[in-house]
């Protein structure tokens, strides 16, 4: 039933309306996951807006335009991205294995996926350390402050995912429905990381264009 149809019902005129039985736990969890992803999206969207607004001030220095800037060498970040892609792929594989009733394959998929996620987090922390060794601390420039903020929050969300991952792993024999939810969450975090990465290494002209499009230009 469409939302519009629901909202135009005249409940005072109706006879008995019987809904189907209460929803399955999986459907309830998926619904909650959608709400959670919406909240996380709004959170990061607001950060993006803040980033774009801040990028329009004269003291803004890009991160990856020329040698000597903090993100000019991105090898470690690309390696980390590969870890996250593999992690997401493993979760997808596990999710497909669950559908095929292959418990062993799903176990392997979810375990390896979790390990790649841990590798991503470790890689991000190594990159932070590399930056600090070069003197690029959090207050070096506004753009770099955003880099630490974005990557830190992204890691925090991944750590939250790892809690869900642990629950999914330990309940795999009795309840496989969590695997698909984990996969969705991991895909989301992969896409989010892609957007964050692209935003952080973009050129000032890109920021100016997006900001102008959003009416945020100076």
């Amino acid at each position: 039933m469409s939302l519009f149809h629901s909202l135009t019902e005249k409940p005072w005129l109706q006879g008995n309306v019987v809904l189907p039985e209460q929803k399955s736990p999986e459907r309830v969890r998926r619904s909650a996951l959608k709400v959670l992803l919406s909240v996380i999206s709004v959170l990061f969207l607001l950060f993006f807006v803040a980033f774009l607004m801040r990028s329009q001030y004269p003291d803004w220095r890009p991160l990856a335009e020329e040698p000597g800037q903090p993100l000019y060498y991105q090898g470690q970040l690309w390696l980390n991205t590969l870890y996250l892609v593999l992690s997401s792929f493993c979760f997808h594989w596990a999710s497909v294995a669950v559908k095929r009733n292959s418990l062993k394959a799903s176990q392997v998929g979810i375990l390896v996926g979790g390990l790649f996620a841990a590798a991503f987090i470790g890689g991000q922390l190594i990159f932070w350390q590399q930056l600090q060794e070069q003197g690029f601390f959090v207050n070096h420039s506004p753009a770099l402050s955003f880099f630490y903020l974005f990557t830190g929050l992204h890691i925090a969300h991944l750590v939250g995912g790892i809690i869900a991952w642990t629950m999914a792993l330990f309940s795999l024999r009795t309840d496989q429905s969590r695997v698909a939810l984990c996969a969705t969450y991991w895909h989301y975090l992969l896409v989010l990381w892609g957007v964050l990465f692209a935003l952080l290494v973009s050129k000032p002209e890109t920021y100016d264009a997006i900001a102008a499009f959003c009416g945020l230009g100076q």
Partner: protein
Amino acid sequence: MTAQEHHSPQSFWTKYIWSQDHKVIAIQYSLTAIFVGLIALVLSTLMRLQLGFPGSFDFIDASAYYQYVTMHGMIMVVYLLTAIFLGGFGNYLIPLMVGARDMVFPFVNMLSYWFYLLAVVVLLASFFVTGGPTGAGWTLYPPQAILPGTPGSDGGIILMLISLGIFIIAATMGGLNYVTTVLQARTRGMTLMRMPLTIWGIFMATILALLAFPALFVSAIMMLFDKLLSTSFFMPAILSMGEQLGHEGGSPILFQHLFWFFGHPEVYIVALPAFGIVSDLISVHARKNIFGYRMMVWAIVVIGVLSFVVWAHHMYVSGMNPYFGYFFATTTLIIAVPTAIKVYNWVLTLWQGNIRMTVPMLFALGFVSTFTIGGLTGLFLGNVVVDLPLSDTYFVVAHFHMVMGVSPVLVIFGAIYHWYPKMTGKMLHDGLGKFHFWTTFIGTYTIFFPMHYLGVLGVPRRYYAYENYDFIPESAKDLNAFITIAAIFVALAQLVFLFNLAWSYFKGRAAGSNPWQATTLEWQTETTPPGHGNWGESIPECHRWAYDYSVPGYEQDYLPQNQPGEANA
């Protein structure tokens, strides 16, 4: 032993402390919110003592005054009103009113309360750190909020920001539960349009909270970075105490945008549950179906959506582009339309109803009055040219206290008088309740109505003392003393309410399962108060909407939602 009894918690700890039962969590939320709200009430009385009798109390210096203002505002808006409407009433009423056994994620629901309690503890801890709590004003505007010269600019502001972060995590965990429970755990027959308006109000307010609180979270984290790690998100290049600070190029206006993107929906996070609850109180106690149910639902949805595109009307004086001001003034005035529809519908529900002047009804009527007054002054302030001269005066203090201070608090009282019998099995004392209503209703008018006049006189808000301002007449000082006396009187009257809560719990008249003869499902439980799992062996089915009152052709003047048979013909 039934299945429910088998799974119900057995020990004191799991039943009352680490409880996962939505009803216990609701009461935990409510008691904590009332406790912290009483602290905010005491702070407001201390502020009034300074304003009414300046210089008479040595312990209230300028710093203390600003700390009282800040903590009063933040506690009332976030830690009392938001927490009690969503965590308190939301938790108690959603599963019962939609016919569910509990929230869909009871463990997360329990975590939500404990995070909320932690947020309160961290907030109150700021009273005990060096420099005391922050005195930056509840809006916490940088750069002043984190610079020396503002009270509590070290430990105070840090603890405030951390506390807000924890609160938002708590609200998100709770919100996920409320939204998912409404969407996925309604009983058979409970279509969206058969839900009571209370649930609609709480549901929409929860969605607003889930989408608006991230803005506060973002600003709190970025300000913490500015404070602790010397970043420059919000902090411009600045001289402080003759010293050049390390910040450069940040934008305080960016903070204002983020804060008010949260701050204005916050008004409706508080108002929408109040709208819903008042609709139900009026309908039940006037024995009449709510007038224009569908329009009431649509108005809740439209107000929720519009509340995200009006935030900058709080920033007219920030020097924004005049076209922005024009846009935000227009959206602000448009939001008055669905709001006015609701007021008309409440009045039309009362029209020719069989009105029972019970205590909940008195509070509901009081709300319609104070909300209308507060809403009308909002029309003044929504216009840029009127707002500019009034923005920093007591007119604004009067406006927002009427519309989102007094009004929702009256609804909270009305709701407690209405649902206390279900929560405890006892009626609150009627005489004490009426005394509480009239003292609070007339008392709050005597506090806030004169403030409009002070505002028009040009008396500025946020001032600690008003000596040596020629434009402020002597009569304004007398009026301030009068307001202070009224405020003390109203504050003391709340002790009667607290006494009533405690006394009635032990000595109150037995309520029975449905003392108000209401239709909604929470009144149809097997036991009162409802046991663990709410419904005994089987959950109720919903056969009609929530407003079948005084239906022609039936002997009794209400038809419970779980009563089978055709709806009103």
